[in-house]
């Protein structure tokens, strides 16, 4: 295979790495540079990254099966790249004021490279390398608000719990290697026997390790503090990109490696999914800080995503992709509003949003659309996302789980409406005054609102996702 071929297969990794190296060179050789130029350059290269990903259909493996790529994996990478682009635009005004904006991009691009490798891995060793590469720079990003002690606290919690979960994963992997004699996905799948208790133990450890990364209850405890402490851009990244990438590889591993054990992991995941939705919801109800609130709401959203994973059908997988895309737009949109408000006024409590509609009508309407999409209210895309996940669950006959899920939809509506009520109904003597929004945030907000309001009526998108999905 020619070098060009390899580069074509690893185009995401190669280009992102190129940008990282260039940023480092700029840092070393240029004394004083214009922040807007650098930020514009990175954003443009992310757009380019998305653009070139649609050229051709790379397919194949490299490094002796360690790395593989096909259309589905390309789709997964496209989804997280799109999310990163939106976050990067959203963070523009914050980064311009930040002294270390260049390092921010070096770190976050390293994280995304790690995720690319993780998604493309064909071997648990490669997967683990990618995972660590995605985790460690992320923890330092969580501490990027240098003068806030909570930021450091969040980063500390994150690195400790990540290390813990990695240890659990590694332990599972070592057992797996001991029993199947390989770490290659295909070989493990061939040699995996349902009768061996040791292998089931390995599966259980792997599940727990993944559950940490996707912040599934009861492995979610690090989420709230880290989300609250981190800068908003990092919080959005954690709640959307990290979760998405981990979920994608989780799904691939379950379907392609542990497909034979569907019965076993299905029952475990049904329980985890029900717990995640319910506990996430119950905690979200009591939050007064909007970032913590969104953290818990994103925990419960992960519970719905698991429904699609559990089904093991290609429609279930397509629903997971579909929901993930919608969730990216809804959640990043919501975080953009939070970021705009916090950037201009420094306020982050739900009470501060009282009467926002009087002073900032457009911002409030946008946040309402995002919250309704998260709650699954038509005509927003969130309605379709949730219904498709639940319909895939119905095809698989998960009626008990669906009952819990629909009850949770009612509970979640209560707390999403709380914020809508604060903005539109509650009276406030001194609401936040009208402030200027930067153009990048405006663009993200408008884009997200348009996508959320129209996605459900563009049925070919779901068709496209379904054509790239596979079942057990």
């Amino acid at each position: 295979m020619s070098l060009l071929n390899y580069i074509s297969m690893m185009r995401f990794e190669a280009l992102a790495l190129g940008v990282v190296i260039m940023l480092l060179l700029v840092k070393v050789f240029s004394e004083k540079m214009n922040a807007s130029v650098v930020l514009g350059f990175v954003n443009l290269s992310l757009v380019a990254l998305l653009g070139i990903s649609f050229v051709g259909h790379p397919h194949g493996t490299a490094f002796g099966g360690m790395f593989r790529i096909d259309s589905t994996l390309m789709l997964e990478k496209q989804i997280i790249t799109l999310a990163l682009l939106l976050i990067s635009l959203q963070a523009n005004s914050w980064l311009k004021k930040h002294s270390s904006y260049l390092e921010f991009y070096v770190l976050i691009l390293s994280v995304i490279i790690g995720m690319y490798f993780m998604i493309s891995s064909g071997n648990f060793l490669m997967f683990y390398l990618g995972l660590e590469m995605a985790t460690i720079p992320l923890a330092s990003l969580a501490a990027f608000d240098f003068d806030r002690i909570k930021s450091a606290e969040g980063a500390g919690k994150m690195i400790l719990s990540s290390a813990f979960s990695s240890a659990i994963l590694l332990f599972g992997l070592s057992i797996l290697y001991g029993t199947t004699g390989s770490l290659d996905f295909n070989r493990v799948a061939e040699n995996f026997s349902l009768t061996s208790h040791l292998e089931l133990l390995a599966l259980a450890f792997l599940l727990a390790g993944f559950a940490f990364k996707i912040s599934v209850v009861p492995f979610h405890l690090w989420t709230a503090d880290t989300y609250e402490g981190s800068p908003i851009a990092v919080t959005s990244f954690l709640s959307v990109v990290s979760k998405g990438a981990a979920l994608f590889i989780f799904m691939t591993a379950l379907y392609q490696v542990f497909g034979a054990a569907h019965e076993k992991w299905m029952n475990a995941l049904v329980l985890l999914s029900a717990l995640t939705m319910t506990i996430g919801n119950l905690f979200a109800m009591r939050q007064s800080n909007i970032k913590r609130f969104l953290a818990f709401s994103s925990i419960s959203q992960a519970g719905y995503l698991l429904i699609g994973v559990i089904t093991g059908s290609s429609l279930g997988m397509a629903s997971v992709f579909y929901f993930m895309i919608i969730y990216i737009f809804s959640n990043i949109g919501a975080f953009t509003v939070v970021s705009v408000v916090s950037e201009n006024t420094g306020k982050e409590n739900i009470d501060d949003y009282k009467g926002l509609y009087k002073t900032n009508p457009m911002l409030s309407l946008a946040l309402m659309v995002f919250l309704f999409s998260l709650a699954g209210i038509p005509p927003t895309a969130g309605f379709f996302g949730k219904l498709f996940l639940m319909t895939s669950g119905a095809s698989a006959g998960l009626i008990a789980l669906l009952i819990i899920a629909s009850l949770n939809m009612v509970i979640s509506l209560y707390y999403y409406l709380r914020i809508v009520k604060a903005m539109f109904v509650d009276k406030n003597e001194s609401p936040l005054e009208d402030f200027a929004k930067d153009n990048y945030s405006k663009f993200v907000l408008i884009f997200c609102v348009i996508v959320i309001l129209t996605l459900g009526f563009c049925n070919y998108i779901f068709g496209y996702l379904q054509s790239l999905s596979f079942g057990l």
Partner: protein
Amino acid sequence: MNLSLLILIPFLTVLAILLVKDGKMARVIALAGSFAQLAAALFMLFSYMKLHDGSRLAFEESHVWFAQWNINYHIGVDAISIAMVLLTSVVLVAGVLVSWNIEKSTTSDPSSGGQPKEFFILLLLLATGAFGFFISVDLFTQFFFFELAVIPKYLLIAIWGSGKKEYAAMKLVLMLMGGSAMVLIGILGFYHFSVAAGTPTFDLLALSKLSLTHNQQMFLFPLLFAGFGVLSAMFPFHTWAPDGHSSAPTAASMFLAGISMKLGGYGCLRVAVYLLPDAAREYSPYIIILACIGILYGAFVTLKQRDIKMMNAYSSVSHCGFVILGIAMFTKTAMVGAVLQMVSHGVMTALFFAVIGMIYERSHTRMGDEMGGLMKVMPFLGSVFIIAGLTSLGLPGFSGFVAEMTVFVGSFQNADLFHRVATIIATASIVVTAVYILRAVGIALWGPIKKIEFEKLPDAAWNEKLAAGILVVAIVILGTMPFWLSDMIYKTTETLFGMAVK
């Protein structure tokens, strides 16, 4: 007739209102849109009557929405949905007219009100959901519109309402969403069974041909019936209704009682009973008991109310009990009666809430015993109040009599003791109704004028007269010549339920 128009007109009106800045312009557009909708509904009625006698689904339209799940945008109408669409468009026009001066409205506390643009957008969004719900034949599409019709209510009540509006709005929306969660489980259950049968579908017509085992039917029916029952304030899920109705602004009360509660009744009939007739028959004694409790309980609680808006809210619980009762009685006549009662109660209660709102706007009180002699100062509103009251107690000549009579006759066709006793109990509630209606009329309208400031109160303005006029005309048409409608509905019931129903 292109049925999609019925969804497009209100939706385009919403978009048009979004584009204008001025509140005055917004209400003009809203009124134009709702009149266009009424015209479209009437056109649909006449073209349906020209071609069909009610025995079949007409003007069907089906487009693939999501092929992967077999979700189709499938719409069509028969006599029952036509009746509902007509009701909705009449109430819509009246609702917009009543809210003409929402900008400086005093029906709510002084702090709320204003924002006419947002108000009309929400009102029309709610209507879009209701129209879509009544004409869709695909369960997914139907559920989409169903939920679309729920959320605007929260904002309508919480922003423009009065009293303990935030509590009432939250209670209402959570209870209705609880109902819709039950419906959702029912729909997904249907999908699951259709997958098991090899033909995954959400289509009502296809699902009606699906053969389900006894246990499957018995599992699905309570979910669907109770889920829709929450919306039609079926006992014991009625508690949202009094709070919601009495806190809502006038137009929203009219919509809630006139349209939303009908979503429930229509869903019970069109989805639950139509798809699961056997289970419906088995559950019917329990439903009848609940309906009778609801009818009597609603009537007796109404007796205790001083607040006339609260009074009408509780009487709605009682009146909607007749809808549930008619459906559960399982004779064609009773079912026709149930549909007629939905239409009749819709226009009657909309008229009642409208006139109560108008009186409150002038007298600034809703307590019946603080009013008095209002007939002398506002004869038009007083007469309309009396017409609404007489319709409510079922005076011949008005729609209430036709509908309730049909339900009772249909119910009495069941020859056994249980059904007869239930019918008699339900009929007895009419006496109670007469007591509270006549008392309210007597206290509020007759007698001496209680406060001096009442003497200077103006009578109805043009928009109020027009709104009340439209509703009164609808009531009288239904009350004096119901057969063009009831015959069509009878044919539709025959097609829908055929053998299953006596």
